[in-house]
């Protein structure tokens, strides 16, 4: 393994983007949650909201700085690890990365100072606007990065001249076929990551006996956002799957570990895919399940890996990453709804639900990383 430069370059880049995504996936949504806290304080004058804001703005600053630093390493690795890629598509990737810096990063970098240190030093409305601009900046940043990532999956609006991509339609490049649904999926993932972080940390404080109003507000905010977003995410995830089926059927075949094209394709819940034998071992599946989900018809024909001999992604990593993502999502649904019901009925989480929320504090990271592994490993070869 250690003498294969392509594999090592993949591992190194994967390690970096894995580390990097941990932080933006929090800040994108935490910025909006901070704005909500600030607006609640402004409207109610309840200092518990400002106390909550002051705690989470420190977390935001720490997370933002780690995201920026790891992002810089990633931009260097585009050149050091994948010079052939940047030589080929630099005309597209370069401007999209520059738009992110110009429109999003500058906005965040300028106003995060006011957001962090401005309360009591600038007018309340100016501090609130700074918080809003930072939230908009984090989302704009996600917009441009997802535009580039999606373009790598479903390229559009360009022509190849002498082996180099040249832009012909920037609108088609930015809003390429998989971009809108991927952006929605990522923004919701960020919302869930931040929601479970807020709920989990608040539950941890609650279980330690901290009954401050800010802790109660954090608990209610995190659980409510999680309970609302998770069913939306499941719906959007299904739409993303249908989009992938249309544009990247080999990835779907790997996700389903479906070796042969045909109708009545089972939904494989568990299996050990064997690429050498091109079959699944110890398979447990729901008959016609994949046909029903992907074609909304039990007799629907689902593309199999037999259509992509030697041109499909490695099956096991994609298959397992997808199941980790979905499994984490189901756990999120269960914990968020039980916690919401408990808070609604009794006003407090209780020991068991509180412990479950603490256990799920970083579940958003697990789901986001496994989801990106499905997306990016599924793009191979």
């Amino acid at each position, binding site marked *: 393994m*250690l*003498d*294969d*430069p*392509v594999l*090592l*370059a*993949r*591992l*190194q880049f994967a*390690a*970096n983007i894995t*580390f990097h995504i*941990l932080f933006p996936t929090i800040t994108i949504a935490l910025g909006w949650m901070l704005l909500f806290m600030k607006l609640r304080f402004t409207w*109610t*004058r*309840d*200092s*518990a909201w*400002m*106390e909550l804001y*002051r*705690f989470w703005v*420190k*977390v935001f600053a*720490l*997370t933002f700085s*780690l995201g920026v630093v*790891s992002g810089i*390493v990633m931009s260097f690795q585009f050149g*050091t*690890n*994948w*010079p*052939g*890629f940047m030589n*080929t*598509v630099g005309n597209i990737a370069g401007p999209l990365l520059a738009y992110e810096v110009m429109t999003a990063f500058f906005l965040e970098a300028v106003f995060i100072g006011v957001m962090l240190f401005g*309360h*009591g030093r600038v007018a309340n409305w100016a501090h609130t606007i700074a918080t809003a601009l930072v939230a908009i900046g984090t989302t704009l940043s996600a917009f441009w990065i997802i535009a580039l990532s999606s373009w790598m999956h479903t390229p559009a609006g360009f022509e190849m001249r002498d082996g180099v991509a040249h832009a012909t339609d920037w609108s088609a490049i930015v809003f390429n076929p998989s971009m809108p649904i991927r952006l929605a999926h990522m923004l919701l993932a960020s919302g869930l990551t931040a929601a479970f972080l807020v709920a989990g*940390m608040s539950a*941890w*404080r609650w279980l*330690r006996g*901290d*009954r*401050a*109003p*800010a*802790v109660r507000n954090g608990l209610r905010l995190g659980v409510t956002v999680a309970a609302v977003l998770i069913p939306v995410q499941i719906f959007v995830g299904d739409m993303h799957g249908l989009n992938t089926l249309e544009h990247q059927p080999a990835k779907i075949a790997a996700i389903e570990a479906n070796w042969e094209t045909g109708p009545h394709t089972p939904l494989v819940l568990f299996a050990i895919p064997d690429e050498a034998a091109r079959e699944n071992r110890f398979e447990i599946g729901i008959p016609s399940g994949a046909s029903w989900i992907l074609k909304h018809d039990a007799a629907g024909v689902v593309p199999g890996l037999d259509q992509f001999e030697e041109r499909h992604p490695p099956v096991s990593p994609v298959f397992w990453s997808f199941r980790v993502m979905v499994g984490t999502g189901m756990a999120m649904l269960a914990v968020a709804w039980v916690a919401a019901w408990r808070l609604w009925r009794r006003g407090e989480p209780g020991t068991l639900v509180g412990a479950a929320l603490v256990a799920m504090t*970083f579940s958003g990271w697990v789901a986001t990383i496994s989801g990106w592994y499905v997306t990016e490993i599924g793009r*191979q*070869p």
Partner: protein
Amino acid sequence: MLATHEAASDVPAAMIATTFLGYMGLYAFLLAAYVGTLYYLAGKGRRTDVTVEGPGAVPVPSQA
């Protein structure tokens, strides 16, 4: 379609392996420090010095 091996650099494998291990060590340290800091901040407990202005303000009650 541009395959991954066509886009890779010609940097020696040993050099990539060395920097990869360096990154892994650094990221493990930073991640542990990040999570530790979160729980340190949370464990410090509640603030009682929040400035609240204007009529109808609800002050933070004293710590039990």
